[in-house]
């Protein structure tokens, strides 16, 4: 009796192993880079971790297929390497000799990718399913491009500056005009002083007169 059960178990595991081979048509290769991702806090990959993986994948198949009774035994794993990479195939819950289609497995993994990753504290890059590309997160694009906001601020400041400067120059001119029409006599003195500083005049400044005394000597 015991012998028969033993033979059956061996046969079934051998049968299962035959289903799972590297480069199996309905299988996927999984690769983990635990040390790279976690560094000091890396855990050791052992049988328990493998069990967790199989359980997580069974969970993914269950949620994808809408409640069909996938079990840990339905996830068959083989060709494990020290890299931590292995192949797996998924067998149907009721008929363990039938493999689930590749595309179904892919969709199931895709749907629960986040849950699978977080079970192992890994990301899409450190837990790779070779052949299942990670879901690309589109960069967040807000409704109003941010640069337009900054542009608006800068242009507002510049525009305000232009307006302020123009207004102040117009106001100053009006003030000067009022002052000029009021008193002209006072203006002559400072003008003579400013002449001495050297304005531009039409023509060439003739140096030979600069040494002359302003007051002609008798």
């Amino acid at each position, binding site marked *: 009796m015991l012998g028969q059960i033993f033979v059956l178990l061996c046969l079934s595991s051998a049968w299962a192993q035959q289903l799972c081979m590297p480069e199996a048509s309905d299988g996927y290769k999984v690769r983990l880079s635990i040390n790279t991702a976690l560094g000091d806090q890396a855990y050791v990959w052992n049988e328990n971790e493998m069990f967790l993986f199989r359980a997580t994948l069974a969970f993914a198949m269950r949620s994808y297929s809408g409640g069909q009774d996938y079990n840990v035994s339905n996830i068959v794993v083989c060709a494990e390497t020290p890299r931590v990479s292995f192949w797996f195939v998924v067998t149907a819950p009721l008929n363990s000799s039938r493999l689930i289609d590749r595309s179904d497995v892919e969709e199931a993994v895709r749907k629960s990718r986040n849950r699978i990753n977080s079970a192992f504290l890994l990301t899409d890059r450190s837990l790779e399913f070779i052949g299942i590309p990670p879901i690309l997160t589109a960069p967040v694009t807000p409704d109003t491009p941010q640069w337009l906001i900054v542009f608006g601020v*800068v242009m507002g400041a510049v525009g305000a500056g*232009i307006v302020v400067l123009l207004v102040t120059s117009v106001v100053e001119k009006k003030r000067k005009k009022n002052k000029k029409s009021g008193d002209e006599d006072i203006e002559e003195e400072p003008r003579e002083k400013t002449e001495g500083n050297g304005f531009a005049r039409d023509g060439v400044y003739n140096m030979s007169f600069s040494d002359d005394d302003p007051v002609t000597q008798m």
Partner: protein
Amino acid sequence: MGKAEDSGVEERPQWDNKVQYLLTCIGFAVGIGNVWRFPYLCQIYGGGAFLIPYLIALVFEGLPLLYLELAIGQRFRMGSIGVWNSISPLLGGVGIASMLVSLLVCMFYNTLLAWVLWYLFHSFQNPLPWSQCPLNDNLTGYNTECVKSTPANYFWYRETLNITPDIETSGSLHWWLVICLASAWCVVYVCFIKGIESMGKVVYVTAIFPYLVLTIFLIRALTLPGATVGLVYLFTPDWEILKNPQVWLDAATQIFFSLSVAFGGLIAFSSYNPERNNCEMDAILVGVINSATSLYGAIPIFSILGFKANTAYNSCVKENILALTNHFEFSDQNITAENYDHWLEYLNRTSPGEVAGVDLRLCDLQTFLDQSASGTGLAFIVFSEAVVSMPGAQIWAILFFTMLFSLGLSSMFGNLEGVLAPIKDLKLVPTWIPDGLVAAVICLIAFLMALIFTMGSGNYWVEIFNSYVGSVPLLIVAFFEIIAVIYIYGMKNFSEDIYFMTGKKPNIFWKACWMVISPLMLLVVLITYVVVQAQKHPTYPTWNPAYELFPKTEVKPYPDWVFAIIILLSVIPVLPIPLVALYQLICCRMKKSSAHTDLSPSCNDGFEVETQQQTNQRA
């Protein structure tokens, strides 16, 4: 006496103090080129060895020209056209040439500032938009053009410029670049509304801020890993390179364009000075500070480039390690960056066939360091990529682009002044029109003309303007400037003027430079430059995604009509020199036959007309 003279006299604006004047000149001389052209030249011309031709060119060509321009502006107290007209009416064309070159340079230089503004606006985004590729249309992968090149390249060529494959396809106006260009011109206009009154206050910020940022970058860059590699690479002298004449040519042209002489801007700035001002000290100060800034700026730039090369090298090695680990199924992290070489050797010995099968990249730090770039490539691609890898990337990006903007803005002041001062001096506009309005009109005209650069092919046109407008015409103008002052005006007169202004005559060094060395150097540089340019049919690199070797740029020759435009751009600014001389000769000959006055070096039109009027009145 006062009233009769006042009718035509206008108060010439003055600097508030000497510091303003010096900062404006320094700001004009120190431009974006100091940051993105000099380090590149240093790198390709043998590092520390390049400093020798550079400093020789500075001392024998740069400083004399600078001193000449500052002295002449301070002496005649007019913009460039007025100065040359005062020396001799035949030379008015030199001033007009300066003005034309300044106008053309204004146009494309502000486009550079528009691009800097675009990057600055985008630096406020988190994450930086040039750090990742966007998704393609059906969201299955990343955009192919971006994946083949790099995200920074893609952001520059596609999202900023939306560049066309060659210069003949013009594309359309890009609204985002148009509004950036408009804001750049508005900023320039705001600073120019009140002439040097408003500009003089702005230069306190725009001239000093870049130094602050460079210092911050220096401190940060020196602490980055790989910084020393970059610095060693930059400064290791390769003495052999000095035998190559191209190095000397490039050093001379770099010093010349870096100091911004022959634009007319420096003449205008020094014309607002008080009469007695030591322009010799000013010239030496501005020249030395300009070169020192180039050197000072090269240090953080190269530290950061070294950091970038180091990062690229490390990621290359990591890629190889991953490939090997995956292929041979070793345990994760068995092969690390440190023992990579040992492992590779071991694997090559034990299973060379398999190693050959693995697609390993050749990781050589030197190759990464050699990926040099200058100009827009340095700032917008290489540097922005480097900034992404630095912690706190946004702040560094904001600081960097603000620094570039203020460097460019202070140079724009000089360019625009080189256009506005001659207009004022020529009295082309009636005096009741305020200066602010003239500035507004010039800004508007330049903005409208610069819209060419906002089209799809805009970048190619900027390159054309950069290479051909700001080179040969300036050399010719500078050559005529020196000849005009030293030989037509007279070395004796000029020495007297300098004695009057500074209190001492120029010493033998300046005289030797002005009379012999500088004109000779300029002539040699000019001729060699023209000969070198004329030898090959000019080509330009294009960004063509359809090219087989993409992302390498496809080098195409300029089509004939573009070549004609290039010739026009180089020749038209210089044409006024002979034209005005001819016109004045014909006019003066007609006057000469009637008034019998000789054409003296300081032929003053005003004086001639008086004698005629007087003779008429007497008769």
